């Protein structure tokens, strides 16, 4: 199986320099559908799904490999090698910000700059560090996911497929949006919310832009500022956009902040 099939890699755009977009926990490469097209004129854009999400090959899922963010970073490096990426821009959302940090440490020549959207170095509070969540709350989330995926992935898609008047709805939903294998999603949630990347941040050498949303309950402004202080020479931009997914809720603001950086 090729890397490109395994991770459902899609390459578009005409530019010389490549821009690779990595989605976070909860969705797939559709996360970038309002942002990536804006860069197709000046960049070669690369989108992919993490194994377990979207159109990736579920049979490639290896619980041991993907029990840490490092396993996901290895995949990013493999995709980069497969495409011969050099000096590319890595754009990561949420947990994939840290996947990008790890990938840039594993393959320094591959990514010459990083854009981290809503990053968090660690979600669980630890002493003076305020990640925003307690261990118990993360356990609750894992249980919660279980309750929701039951009606979500297996049953919702066929119900909409049955909408004979608008078949394109079912078609698009089942093929794309945020489709995640429930068991893998739970693993990914555990890996995401129990990760701790604080010690990796200071090793980053690539110029880094941090996009921080207002009122983001997943990654607070405090956390964004911590990431900025820890990555040498990094730049923090606080967006007017609220929530955790400015790439969907305020794509224009994200695009212009990214343009100013690259």
């Amino acid at each position, binding site marked *: 199986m090729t890397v490109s099939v395994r991770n459902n890699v899609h390459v578009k755009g005409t530019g010389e320099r490549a821009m690779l977009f990595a989605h976070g926990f909860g*969705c797939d490469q559709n996360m970038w559908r309002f942002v990536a097209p804006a860069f197709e004129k000046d960049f070669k854009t690369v989108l992919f799904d993490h194994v377990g999400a979207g159109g990736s090959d579920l049979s490639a899922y290896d619980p041991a490999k993907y029990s840490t963010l490092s396993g996901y970073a290895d995949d990013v490096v493999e995709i980069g090698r497969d495409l011969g990426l050099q000096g590319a821009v890595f754009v990561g959302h949420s947990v994939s910000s840290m996947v990008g940090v790890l990938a840039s440490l594993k393959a320094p020549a591959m990514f010459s700059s990083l854009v981290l959207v809503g990053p968090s170095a660690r979600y669980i509070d630890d002493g003076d560090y305020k990640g925003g969540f307690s261990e118990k709350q993360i356990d609750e989330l894992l249980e919660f996911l279980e309750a929701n995926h039951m009606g*979500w992935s297996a049953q*919702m898609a066929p119900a909409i497929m049955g909408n004979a008047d608008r078949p394109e709805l079912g078609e698009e939903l089942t093929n794309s949006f945020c489709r995640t294998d429930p068991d893998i999603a739970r693993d990914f949630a555990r890996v995401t919310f129990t990760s701790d990347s604080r010690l990796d941040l200071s090793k980053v050498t690539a110029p880094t832009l941090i996009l921080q949303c207002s009122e983001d309950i997943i990654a607070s402004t405090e956390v964004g500022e911590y990431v900025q202080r820890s990555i040498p020479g990094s730049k923090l931009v606080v967006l007017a956009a609220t929530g955790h997914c400015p790439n969907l809720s305020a794509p224009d603001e994200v695009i212009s902040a990214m343009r100013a950086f690259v």
Partner: protein
Amino acid sequence: MKSSRRCAPLSEMMQNPPSSSIIEDLEDLYENAPCGYLSLEPSGRIFKVNRTLSNWIGCAPDQLVGKRLHDLLSIAGRMFYETHIAPLLRMQGFFNEVALDLITEKGERLPVIANATERRDAEGRAISTRITLLKATDRRRYERQLLDARDQSRSAEAAAQISLQNERETSELREQFIAVLGHDLRNPLASISAGARILLRTPKNEAETRVLRMMETTVVRMSGLIDDILDFARGRLGGGVTLSRDAERALGPVLQQVVDELRAAMPDRKIESDFQIADPVNCDRSRIGQLVSNLLGNALTHGASDKPVRVFASTDHGVFELWVANAGDPIPEAAMDQLFQPFFRGQVRTSEQGLGLGLHIASEIAKAHEGTLTVKSSADETRFTFLMPLRS
């Protein structure tokens, strides 16, 4: 699609359709609907909420306006909403049947099912989000039970797998032990046999000679048992029955020797033999000897003691045939299927019971020679027949 009569206006169906005197109060429908209504700004802030929902929460509607949806949800619900639901809503414009927990003013959880649609402007930008919430306490409890049942069956299966694996390992160890034991038993047996032969060289009285002969035949029988154990253990350990074929040397004398040994061991039993082996038989001679020894041993144990056991072997029309027959009670129908299974033992006195490996090993030897071992049993006789093609 065929249109349903249900949707046709009543005026088309009846001359004087009844008209209702009650007019639906839309304001009241919104406020006191049997479900909660919530309208959000694109930023996630609540700008309208109905009375039903505010009653559930335990706050006046105007106290909820300006708050965020997050403020009504459990922490896990907030995280799920931000990572899954908000993106989905933005991408496809709606979501259905999402399980959420509202946290009431008293701090209690209220399980709900949420559906939502996003209102958009001409450019596709979000204007607002409308959310409908239905109470789902019972449903959630039932789903929880389903999940618990699934988890229980998963852990039961995992436990079963582990114990199966342990059993396999133990059983392999046991078979290795049997193989080693069988091998080690041969040496002392050889000493006993040699000792008996040495003693027989010097003149003995009749009683002493009889005892020594009996010792020799016992050694022969025990060697046979050990061979069976070793073959069985080897078969289980993946070695199978190994052959060293030899078409040059005659098979007849080997068969004759087996018969002679058994006659000597059981002088009061009659064994009639008839060997007509004209063509060379490409077989492992000691294995065929083991096969016939096992079949004869079986016939002598289970056959009527006052009737002869007959053994016949021939080469005819390219086939080597060997059969052993005995009189006595037929093999019960129910036992037929398991006859060649290892450790199967028929109804005999405990003192006569073997390991139940004899017929199993015999059938394994038959298979290794690309031959067949079959049985026919009636009130007249029970006959085991081994057939093997000569060409191989």
